[in-house]
């Protein structure tokens, strides 16, 4: 009995597919492009305390290194030289170590370090939201201001799906279609990481499409590039700044898969 009914359903389903149009939702592909952190984060107070403690404990439990032994020897030798009854013939033959003491070596190394000027860790608050060099210690997500219906809304770059391509290709197209952008990004896998569905407002509802379903794909940017778009039309935001840009429903879905670890 069960088998027969199953085949009937299958048969009717295929008939239904060939007969009518597909589901009433239009498909969109969107890309969640992230710029991963470039520098390490600053430490919390608790982390600072703990790292200090660990260094102290390591120092206490360690043995003296060659360099430290040499420092001690040099210090002992200097103190012996200061005494009145100093006889240099009694000393062993140290050779080079007398000319260049360990302390001199340390000073030379410090001088060399000072000659190297590393780049600044934090750029301060000079950079606004449209620069991708903003918060180097956090991962940033790209947002675009697009027209949806009659309003301009902030959302992740999305584009409508065309027949004959996979959704990942749609997402790639969404990225390359951004005007003036040649962002090189690696897409992480074929599967979408999240979705969002919304119904069109009544006036725009065409026949056969009640609303749209957006599937998000994750991508990681690996070459810093400045988008030559209009100033206010795109933004690089951290996870906790998303709520200032996105609508609540959209935010709720997007928040789930954006990682800020």
């Amino acid at each position, binding site marked *: 009995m069960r088998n027969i009914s199953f085949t009937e359903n299958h048969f009717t389903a295929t008939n239904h597919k060939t007969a009518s149009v597909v589901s009433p939702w239009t498909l969109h592909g969107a890309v969640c492009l992230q710029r*991963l952190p470039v*520098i*390490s984060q600053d430490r919390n107070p608790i982390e600072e305390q*703990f790292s200090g403690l660990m260094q102290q404990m390591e120092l206490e439990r360690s043995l003296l290194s060659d360099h430290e*032994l040499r420092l001690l020897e040099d210090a002992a030798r200097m103190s012996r030289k200061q005494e009145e009854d100093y006889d240099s013939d009694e000393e062993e033959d140290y050779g080079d170590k007398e000319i260049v003491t360990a302390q001199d070596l340390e000073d030379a190394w410090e001088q060399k370090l000072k000659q190297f000027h590393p780049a600044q860790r934090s750029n301060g608050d000079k950079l606004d939201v449209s620069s991708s060099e903003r918060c180097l210690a956090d991962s940033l997500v790209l947002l675009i201001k697009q027209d949806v219906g009659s309003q301009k809304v902030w959302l992740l770059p999305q584009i409508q799906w065309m027949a004959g391509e996979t*959704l990942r290709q749609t997402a790639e197209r969404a990225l390359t279609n951004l005007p003036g952008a040649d962002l090189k990004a690696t897409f992480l896998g074929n599967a979408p990481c999240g979705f969002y569905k919304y119904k069109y407002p009544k006036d725009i509802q065409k026949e056969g499409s009640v609303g749209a379903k957006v599937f998000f794909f994750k991508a990681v940017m690996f070459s810093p590039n400045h988008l030559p778009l209009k100033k206010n039309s795109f933004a690089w935001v951290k996870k906790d700044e998303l709520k200032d840009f996105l609508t609540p429903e959209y935010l709720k879905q997007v928040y789930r898969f954006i*990682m800020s670890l």
Partner: protein
Amino acid sequence: MAGIVCRTLSRVVSSQTSCCSHVVSVRHSHWFTSILSPKTSVPLRAEPKKKKKIDPRREQMMKERLKKKLKKLERVPPELIPIEDFITSAKCFDETRVREVPKLSFEETERRALLLKHWSRYKFSQHQAEMAEIKEALEAQRQALDELKIESEDLYKAAIAPDTDLFPFQHQGPCYTPPIPNYEAPDGKYNDITRVYTQ
């Protein structure tokens, strides 16, 4: 008397040989040596014949003996290469290197114990947060795939197909300071003193 007899005998013999030598000289060819010539010529000439049989055998015996010796040497298992990480160097047992550490006060030990406990609580909460975030992301992905399956089977199948271009995936992790643009790092000189062992 005896001497005279000997001399006469030898004269007779020599006269006999001298007269016989005429007869003998006809047959005298290089194949026949005279009786009075040294005896060593006979075995010398026979030796090349012996070399054909005995010496090849002897050489073979020598070769076999050498081969057996080689095999015996090879059967010895090769010396194991020491793992330098597992050998504590003699420097660690050097007594002159012991660091003098001042004894910790009671307050210091208390502070350390409390800090360690605080740290374990902090790390636990951090771990909980991380696990929750990962779980949420996985759940979002699972729901997205379910929705896609409802939409169309083909797209779903394309989505769950493995991506071969992704791995090997490389990414430079965060450093302490950001990279300086167009920076040329100076070449470093180093002496490689790793010991190479051969078996």
